[in-house]
């Protein structure tokens, strides 16, 4: 099968995500002619210090999708143990790892996982160990900084 088969599946998943989006998540293509790059807007979950923020994420699908996992980046700065604090904002954990990715996984599942991670960070899998340390030992300070960053970087529409 050529790339067309994978493209068809992606188009179908895009249709599902736009017609029936998961809670607090909006999806659109960066470029209508390219189904491999998605723009995601994720609202900070109410029960997290990111509440009130609107975070932009970029989802890229490899040409081998669904045999290889998608990659996901926070374009909006976020104070979080599992998101790298650089201009990439990359995250790589759980099903996003190529050794844990399963082809039957769907993009919706990836988006939901990201949202869950905002509510409950995965400390054992942290990329920002300092932040993880703070999350474990000084939760109040972590929450404070995360709120400040949300207000500063993610409050715009």
């Amino acid at each position, binding site marked *: *099968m*050529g790339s*067309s*088969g994978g493209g068809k599946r992606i188009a*179908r998943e895009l249709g599902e995500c736009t017609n029936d989006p998961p809670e607090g998540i909006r999806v659109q293509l960066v470029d209508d002619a390219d189904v491999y790059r998605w723009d995601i807007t994720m609202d900070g979950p109410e029960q997290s210090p990111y509440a009130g923020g609107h975070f932009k994420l970029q989802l890229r699908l490899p040409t081998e999708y669904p045999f*290889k996992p998608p990659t996901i980046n926070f374009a909006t700065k976020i104070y979080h143990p599992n998101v790298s604090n650089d201009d990439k904002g990359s995250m790589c954990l759980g099903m996003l790892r190529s050794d844990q990715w*399963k*082809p039957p996984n769907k993009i919706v599942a990836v988006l939901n996982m990201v949202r869950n991670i905002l509510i409950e960070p995965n400390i054992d899998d942290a990329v920002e160990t300092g932040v993880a340390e703070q999350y474990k030992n000084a939760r109040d300070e972590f929450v404070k900084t995360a709120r400040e960053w949300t207000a500063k970087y993610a409050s715009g529409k």
Partner: protein
Amino acid sequence: MDRVVSNQGSLHPNPGAEHVDAEAVPSISPEGASATATRRANVPLDLRILDYVTPFDRNLVCPICHCPFIQPVRLDCDHTFCRDCLSRAFTTQTADTKKCPSCRASSSFGQTQTVPRFIIHMIDELVVKCPKHDVGCASQVRRGDLQVHVDLYCSYSEVPCPAVDCSLTIPRKDLGERCLHSKVICDSCDVEMLEKDVNEHNRKLCTKQTSTCPDCQESFTKSALSDHERRCPQTTIRCLGSNIGCRHSTKRVDMAQHQNSCALASLLPAMKAMSDRMDQQGAALDLLQRKNDILEGSVSNMQSLLANAALPLADASAAATSPHSTEAAPFDSATHHLLSLHESLREELDRVASSISEVDARASMMIINENLRLKEDLAHTNAVIGSMRMQLQWLTSARLQTQPKPAPGAVTSGAGPSVRSGPSSPPPGASQPPIRRLSDSERTKL
């Protein structure tokens, strides 16, 4: 009108397009007709890009490509995938033991099994649009028949050019005696195209040539005309309800008025919903029918198995029973047959049970008789023993009287006790006192 520029067939406008086309979805591109020109009628279809007309069950969808299964295979863990999807998932796994993409159960060397045949039938049954629907083929066929449609019937399939020196292809509907792959330029609009596309260009695409609408006599460019034809108020059209019986036809402008009052046209949505329902139910019925066929097949399998198993049983009890098992020949339905088989087995069982109890009764009768006989024998023997004992007593006492004064040492130690035990019933005629004395003196001695 069109002048031939070159007569050589080697003029694909863009050599790269051939490569792109092999993978691209033959859709949206407006020059679709020429872009797909390199396809051969016998190119294997990519069934994953099809548009499905019938709605399909979610359980028939491959978890990897999200299409109804294409040549499905099953792993030991009972997960099913398209053959291609699975082998592609396996090639992305580096380890030697291949793992199921869904549950990661490792399967021995990635070995697969076939899926039940009815699943194949169900997916073959799904109706799809011909992949050439975007260039004009209106056919909708069962997916299982699609290859045949594309290879043999579809007028839009690309078939090899009839010219021997030309390696290009042409839609079957345009197939003629000679090669149509030379470039021509439209006189009116100076656009360059292949000769095979000239008709299409003149009919619809040319931006310069004009023609008049036969219905309203206005003139349009060719590209606008086809659009206009769909809207021209003067064109005579048929009532919406025509396919459920309305014979009325009038100009498009007047049609709205008719349709407002036409009962058939206003019935149309309801009729449509009903016929959709009927189609759905027909499809569901087909499905049930197939399932039923399968079930009936397995029932008759079981039935023959059962018949084989019942045969030795019948042999064993043949002596005691009438030949019931053989008369169970032609029954009109499998269930009926099974039931009657069950019935005859039950009767046989009853017979066996009654003969067993008969045998049981006979056996216990025999035992009682034997017992009585033995008891009599025993009594007889007892009587004999009693009389023998009396004779012995008598003999002993008689012998003691004939030897009144024996030497005390001559009396054996064993004789004493046997004599002493005896006297409870002394034989008549034997005088007792000497015995007593003797035994008394013997005792004092001891």
